[in-house]
């Protein structure tokens, strides 16, 4: 058993098929709900459970659902954000690959709760093989009468489709995702209006992450109090963390929120690889500020992370060792955001480009002391001033690194070389 809830049965052979899924209690939440609970009752249970969006923002899911206008002549849409593009995150991939029916059940229930009759699962382009898995599962569900004109014979109609993106980080941002799904370039839109009021095709739309939707069936089946057995008051439930970097056992781990990073990294992942020490941890995907090794005891929940000046984010934990140059690591992250900036707004388009240029100057040994403050200054001019969160995602890691590892930047300027750099040293070997 690799986790208490979503990962409990994940390695069961044949779970992809509807028969095995139902043997393990699958679609019971749906059977229990259809014809027995009202949509309002479903929203109330999810609200009471305290479930928060697992894609990165941590917004309360029940509250998001309740924003959909009750009286609207327009159709409503439920959209699953399966774009999973945050570097360091690979949880949704394993969840969908191994347990596609749980996502389908979660989508139907969420659709029912907000009064939607059509759902779309937006997958990143690289997930073409997952699209095939999901399409097969959707066909099975349709055959079993769980999708179509009358879900479980309840008279409630629901159809579900998959949609494949084609390689754009920005499409993980919900309004950009909707633009892409509509057939436009995947650029973000101004909020408000929020998707709950004017989303897909200007109709009321809820966009939820894969892991969030997968938590819905067990919550509706067992109740809010049951879900609150894990986690704490403000961060209830479980969360999947994707651990990468030089640890002994990288991979996905589902733990109760509030579990300390030390348990995750030392106990579950077996600690650092031999000969390497922990230097820093990026707790929630490459867009959140890193924490130094001394903060290893911090509990993995939304509030504790905020108190440390960082975010739980998507749960993509990137572990950085003592032989890695922080400036070099930050350059890797920054050039990614510079490449993925969609070009719509100036602070992000220009700012990420200049950040990347300054990193190149620093790493080539031609950096000046004032470049360090310039990085901070540009980051400050992007943060909160860009059109969507991509700009913030590029700015925040730099602020975090300057706060905890400024000495490495200074060393690079003074000595024209990194304090340590395993990656550069290894590359030099290849060139030799």
């Amino acid at each position, binding site marked *: 058993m690799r986790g208490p809830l979503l990962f409990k049965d994940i390695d069961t052979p044949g779970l992809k098929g509807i028969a095995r899924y139902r043997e393990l209690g699958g679609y019971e939440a749906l059977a229990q709900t259809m014809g027995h609970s009202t949509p309002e009752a479903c929203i109330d249970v999810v609200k009471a459970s305290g479930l928060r969006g697992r894609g990165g923002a941590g917004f309360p899911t029940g509250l998001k659902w309740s924003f959909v206008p009750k009286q609207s002549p327009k159709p409503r849409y439920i959209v699953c954000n399966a774009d999973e593009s945050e570097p360091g995150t690979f949880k949704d991939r394993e969840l969908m690959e191994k347990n596609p029916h749980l996502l389908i059940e979660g989508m139907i229930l969420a659709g029912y709760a907000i009064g939607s009759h059509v759902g779309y699962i937006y997958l990143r382009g690289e997930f073409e093989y997952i699209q095939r898995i999901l399409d097969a599962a959707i066909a099975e569900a349709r055959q079993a009468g769980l999708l179509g004109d009358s879900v479980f014979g309840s008279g409630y109609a629901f159809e579900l489709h998959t949609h*494949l993106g084609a*390689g754009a980080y920005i499409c993980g941002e919900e309004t950009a995702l909707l633009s892409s799904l509509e*057939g436009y370039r995947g650029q973000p839109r101004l909020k408000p209006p929020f998707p709950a009021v004017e989303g897909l095709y200007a109709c009321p739309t809820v966009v939820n992450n894969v892991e969030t939707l997968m938590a819905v069936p067990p919550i509706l089946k067992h109740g809010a109090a049951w879900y609150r057995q894990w986690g704490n008051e403000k961060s209830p439930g479980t969360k999947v963390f994707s651990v*990468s970097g030089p640890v002994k056992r990288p991979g996905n781990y589902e733990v109760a929120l509030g579990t300390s990073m030390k348990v995750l990294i030392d106990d579950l992942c077996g600690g650092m690889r031999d000969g390497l020490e922990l230097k820093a941890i990026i707790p929630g995907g490459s867009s959140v500020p890193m924490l130094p090794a001394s903060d290893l005891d911090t509990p993995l929940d939304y509030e504790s992370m905020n108190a440390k000046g960082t975010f739980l984010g998507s749960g993509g934990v990137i572990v950085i060792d003592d032989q890695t140059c922080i400036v070099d690591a930050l350059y890797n992250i920054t050039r990614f955001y510079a*490449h993925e900036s969609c070009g719509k707004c100036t602070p992000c388009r220009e700012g990420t480009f200049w950040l990347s240029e300054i990193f190149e100057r620093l790493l080539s040994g031609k950096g000046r002391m004032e470049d360090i403050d310039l990085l901070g200054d540009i980051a400050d001019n992007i943060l909160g001033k860009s059109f969507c969160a991509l700009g913030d995602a590029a700015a925040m890691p730099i602020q975090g690194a300057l706060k905890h590892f400024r000495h490495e930047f200074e060393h690079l300027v003074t000595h024209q070389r990194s304090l340590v750099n395993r990656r550069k040293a*290894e590359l030099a070997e290849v060139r030799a």
Partner: protein
Amino acid sequence: MSHAPVMPTEAAPRLEWPAALLPEVEAALARYPVKRSAVLPALWLAQRQWGWLSPSALQLVARTVELPEPEVFGIATFYTMFNLQPVGRYHLQVCMTLSCSLMGADRLFKHLEKRLGIGHGQTTPDGRFTLRKVDALLERLR
């Protein structure tokens, strides 16, 4: 946005969907309330069929979803996974994201460059391999 492909202006030979693909094209159009939403599915179908998106293929997609050709070109260039140039039989994509970089992605890429004699975005003269640096493939180290 480092590369800026130029929209083809010359008339390209007219291309049609092979009969075997028509049901999939129709299914894609039926999934959405508006035709333009089928632009990504149609581009994918074309790329899977012909290996890359030639000017003729882009024009076919434009006709299918009833959009102006320049708009379809603008959409195709927005997404990195669409090949607007032919690619080799094997498209080698090395993930350079921090997680992978920490585990030796740079070394792997250098090795491939040396071994194949080509750089990022290039194809071997015999048309067998295209090499590319990409990001966030999420391939967990097993």
